């Protein structure tokens, strides 16, 4: 399994990050980019379902949920530690 590294999948609840790179080769990822998950966007992890997957993110005040494996396509620089 691919590691979470410094991707969206590694954010903790309440933690924010700015997307710095998107691995856009997958059409499903391109669809997420159309929904606003692009480089430069600030994202916060709001919660997750049982087992930590799928995850719910806040993006400019609106909720968007994606699976961990999709979240791994988005590299982020974390802004602050969550708890």
């Amino acid at each position, binding site marked *: 399994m691919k590691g979470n590294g410094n991707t969206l999948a590694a954010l903790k609840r309440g933690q924010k990050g700015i997307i710095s790179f998107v691995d856009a080769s997958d059409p499903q990822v391109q669809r997420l980019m159309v929904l606003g998950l692009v480089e430069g966007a600030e994202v916060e992890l709001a919660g997750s379902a049982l087992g930590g997957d799928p995850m719910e993110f806040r993006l*400019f005040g609106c*909720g968007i949920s994606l699976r961990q494996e999709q979240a791994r396509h988005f590299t982020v620089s974390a802004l602050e530690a969550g708890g």
Partner: protein
Amino acid sequence: MAKPAETRVSITDISVRRQPSASIAVVGSPNSGKSTLFNRLTGLRQRIGNYPGVTVERHIGTLKTDDRVVELIDLPGTHGLSAHSYEEQIAIDVLFGRMEGTQPPDAILAVVDATNLYQGLYLVQQLLELERPVVIALTMSDVARARGLDIDTDLLSEHLSGIDICSVVATTGEGINQLRNLLIDLAERPVPGPTSAWPELAAAAHELAESATVPLSIAEIERVLVDGATGANKHVLDCLGPDAATRVEHFRDDLFGLDPPLACEARVRYHWVREVLAEVQQKAPPFYSWRARIGTFLNRPVPGTIGLFLVMAIVFQAVFAWATPVMDLIDSGAAVLGSATSARLGDGAFSSLIADGIIAGVGSVLIFLPQIIILFLFIILLEDSGFLARAAYLMDRAMRAVGLSGQSIIPMISSFACAVPGIMATRVIPNRRDRIATILAAPFMTCSARLPVYALLIAAFVPATKVGFLNLQGLVLFGLYMFGIVGGVLTALLIRKTALRGPKPSFALMLPEFRRPNIQTVLMQLWGRARVFLYRAGTVIFAVAVLVWALAYYPRATDIDPLLTENEVAAAQLEQSWLGRAGKFVEPAFEPLGWDWRVSSAVIAGFPAREVVIAVMGTVYAVGDEADEATLSKRLRAATWPDGRAVFTLPMVIGLLIFYACCLQCAATLAVIRRETGGWRWPAFAWVYMTTIGYVGALLAFQLL
């Protein structure tokens, strides 16, 4: 050009009917408050119809002043002009004037959620390139204000080519009159230019447009540039002149390089949106409200999952408990009407057609209406409050295990009332493979038409003994519900591993904040769905009722022993009717299952609509019209083969229950599968597959138990 079928919901003013001077498309992302605003603007001046050839509903309303009428078309929600689901495709086809039977709109009302300008402005940029007058309605302005979001609409308008922006609150009516005034002459207003987001793309589109043989908006040409010449875009490419393909390729290389074009578009457009937002929108301070608190609480995995199951338990309780009194009322109403009709019209074919065919047949549909209305009411409330999206999110992991995604949970839940609306609810599933797998799993869910069959057989043949603190009858009923769920899940798994093998379904879902549903919108949706159910199922079942009646009535025998009771005469007539003959003809096929010709003919009669089986059994076992279920179950227990063996033994009953749990005996479901999948292939497969499983299951139960 085919004219779409339309039914008028209401006419408020029939004397002053003028042709609308313009049509305005209402466009917005899902959850932008679009439908609530549409209802607020048009009130009851709406028509609901279908786009020809597709099952997505078309809502058209009118807006008028003293001397003008304009028409509003409420389009399905879409995030942008590249389609990712069936519904989005329809919205885009209408906007581009590609939808048969629908004129391209003259102007556009863009609905943008004030609390979600980020995504809203992505769509607005693309709408400005359609080269039609545009006005923006900023919905949920009250929520935005409460959150401390301060939006400078004048400055925003400057960034959007100077178009009008109107802040509204659809629930209270704030700003609605101002918006009406803007809409009434919108079509005559100047066409705005594109935003400054991506001048290179607009310039390329303009250059290509110069050689176009028909007028094309730059938005259409941009779709060819970004999405490529696929599907409907091919037609646009053909209109761009002889060497268009090479020129488009050249522009694509310049604009996108090696990056995926759609990713490029998202990057560029959202970059522009962020810059605009930084200028026009004050950043909101931390925001606390009861909605946000519930949301935060339910974001935790365990409370969220428990909450979901609790809500579903309440819904099922309501569907079965609240509907019963009304269902009993309809049942006895139909019985009274039926016997009154036969009393008045006397004996004869016509009287029998009205009483046994039409009243009993249509009554058997109407009886499910209360359950369906209650279930729909809950589903609409859950959907409008933002709960269903959350259910899909919470259940995604479990659904993934069977090769589906969380989005399949909503159609599955709906199918417990009726598979027809359940299958229609699959339209939001973007991937076609997932959608078809969900459509094939949906009819396995125990629908309200299976319930009376289960109830009859269980009451008659399963002893009411206690198993621990549980009742055995209740346990068997629960087991049948579980059997349906497992059957559906295994079917989905099987089909995703074989015919519909493909990459794992994606899952991306917008999770709206919890909000209070708007009563008017809920009631209008409820009426729309109830009407569609009554019309569609009603027409099919009506035809079936007449057909089954005719098969059971003709040919008439004249040499029946006059000493027999009325009920025995009816049974003898049935035995030599076409239906009885068919039952005898297929008896050898069903004998290994332990069914005699009577059961077989009832089962055959039930193929178009499974609930018919009870009415037919009532007649076959010679109980007559006044049959209530207690007498029918007594008769079933007394039924024997010619050699005196009982027909309804426990293994045979278990087999019959399994058969009903599986078999796809519902013409309405088959028709809706055909419409939604666009051909007979999948309904035919579903029918053969489910009937085979039912037959084999019943055979194994009878032979092995």
